[in-house]
């Protein structure tokens, strides 16, 4: 795998993804203005190329006179942070559970399969609503809820892979030689399923960015005044008639990042060739 050079289908979408990550990391230094300091004298000013724009506010201002571009950059920070954290937790928990259940079979596996069945028989947004209704909206709650949404996919697919891998000759040979479960899983199974996990996790990042922005849009996620693409759109939806730009740019940002992440996932899948990941899973 390492001898092959990176194909364009991976490199091209990786560029905008890395750009978004760079903006998120550097937001405190590159954002032209404070994301939270408003100026009521400069409310709802349009982007620079429209009549009535004010200098230095490239993408205009929002209802409280805050700089739209700066909020967009800081919004990338929170959206990507949440998506990456939730994906990491979900992918790790799901993969470990899938590996253990698939390898050991038995009661653990039977219980796991039922749990997966039940969670997949349940629109995820509803679970999020139920949890947030009681726990209250906050970033840690959001990360945990989104990770709960992500782990099932990993557990299901990794388990399926391990079920067939464990019957392979080299695994049986390792077993016959007296290798214990942790060693077999760590040395022989993990390397085999890693590419699948990477591809799945990439698609998860895209899915979770959309879910996070959706929950924040509903008022169940990131709370104002913290800049986030979803919660900014919640405000923007109210006065979209007067200021289209407040609604257009955060949405375009979500779309661009998710599109790039999904294409990166497609590219990685074709390159690493895990046949088990068919198409993009849906939210």
């Amino acid at each position, binding site marked *: 795998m390492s001898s092959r050079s990176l194909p364009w289908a991976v490199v091209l979408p990786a560029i905008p993804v890395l750009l978004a990550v760079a903006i998120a990391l550097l937001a405190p230094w590159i954002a032209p203005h404070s994301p939270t300091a408003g100026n009521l004298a400069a409310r709802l000013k349009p982007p620079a190329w429209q009549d009535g724009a004010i200098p230095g506010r490239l993408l205009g201002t929002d209802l409280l006179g805050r700089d739209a571009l700066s909020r967009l950059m800081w919004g990338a920070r929170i959206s990507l942070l949440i998506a990456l954290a939730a994906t990491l937790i979900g992918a790790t928990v799901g993969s470990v559970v899938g590996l253990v259940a698939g390898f050991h079979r038995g009661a653990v596996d039977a219980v796991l399969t039922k749990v997966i069945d039940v969670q997949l028989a*349940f629109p*995820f947004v509803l*679970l999020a609503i139920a949890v947030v*209704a*009681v726990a209250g909206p906050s970033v840690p709650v959001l990360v945990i809820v989104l990770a709960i949404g992500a782990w099932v996919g990993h557990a299901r697919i990794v388990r399926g892979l391990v079920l067939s891998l464990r019957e392979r000759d080299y695994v049986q040979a390792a077993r016959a030689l007296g290798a214990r479960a942790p060693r077999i899983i760590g040395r022989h199974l993990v390397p085999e399923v890693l590419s699948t996990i990477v591809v799945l996790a990439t698609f998860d990042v895209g899915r979770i960015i959309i879910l996070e922005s959706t929950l924040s849009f509903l008022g169940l996620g990131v709370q104002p005044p913290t800049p986030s693409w979803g919660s900014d759109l919640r405000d923007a939806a109210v006065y979209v008639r007067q200021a289209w730009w407040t609604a257009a740019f955060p949405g375009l940002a979500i779309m661009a990042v998710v599109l790039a992440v*999904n294409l990166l996932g497609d590219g990685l899948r074709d390159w690493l060739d895990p046949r088990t990941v068919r198409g993009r899973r849906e939210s």
Partner: protein
Amino acid sequence: MFGFAARKILHTLFVALGVVTLVFAALRLSGDPAATMLPGDASVDELRDLRRALGLDQPLWAQYLGFLRGAVTGDFGTSFRHQQPALPLVLERLPATLELAGAALLLAVAVALPLGVLAAIYRGRALDVLAMGFAVVGQATPYFWMGIMLILIVSVELGWLPTSGRGGLERLILPAITLGTHFAASLARLTRTSMLEVLGQQFVTTARAKGLSEWSVILGHALKNAAVPVVTLIGLQFGTLLGGAVVTETIFAWPGVGRLAVQSIFVRDYPVVQAGVFVLALTFVFINLVVDLLYGVLDPRIRRE
């Protein structure tokens, strides 16, 4: 067939029990509902009284049994805001949600199936590139942003369609497009992949060799065999549409279960949230059962599983 149906129904009952348990866990383990429901300045006595009234002072297993009993008898408590039992309030709004999800499903299937089939036939040509471009962008667009943009462009700028409420076809179009686009995108992609796979198989070559016209090969032989994964996705996705309906209803002020549940969170009308989540989840489970049973009818091989 009877044994197959019985197995599926039993499985569904089990899943339904699991879903009720999951709802219970999400609602009870993630915090104290009584503390969430009362205003910030409530006294300790008020909190204790409410906890007692909700049965939260009982041990967890007793609460769970009570919750199960409530779920079976349809008793989720009384809405604080509406002063009526929560379940009828929710059920009243279920037809609106099903109407929206159904319209979105029909719209998506009507657009995505032909698009996916054509993209497969004209693989690599302009139409394929265009259709798949649409699909990839559609998959990256959040429901709610799509809705806001449709309202901005179609309702506000062009003045073609009303922005909110329910009643008449003209109020259904924008929410249905909003909810259906994401699904149409994934369905078009899957239809294309599935068709391409089938078109490369021997029975298609045979059908062509027999001298059948290209269209009868595609419609008569290929499409029928490509349909199984496509029908699977349609079934599975109906539930996702119910979840997406929550968002779409909120944007378009569509009087459905999802909007009611979300609004109830903000006014701390806990019994209604509980009943809303429960009803949508069970609707989903029930629809999956119907889809499963339909498979058994469509594809006899599945019954032997």
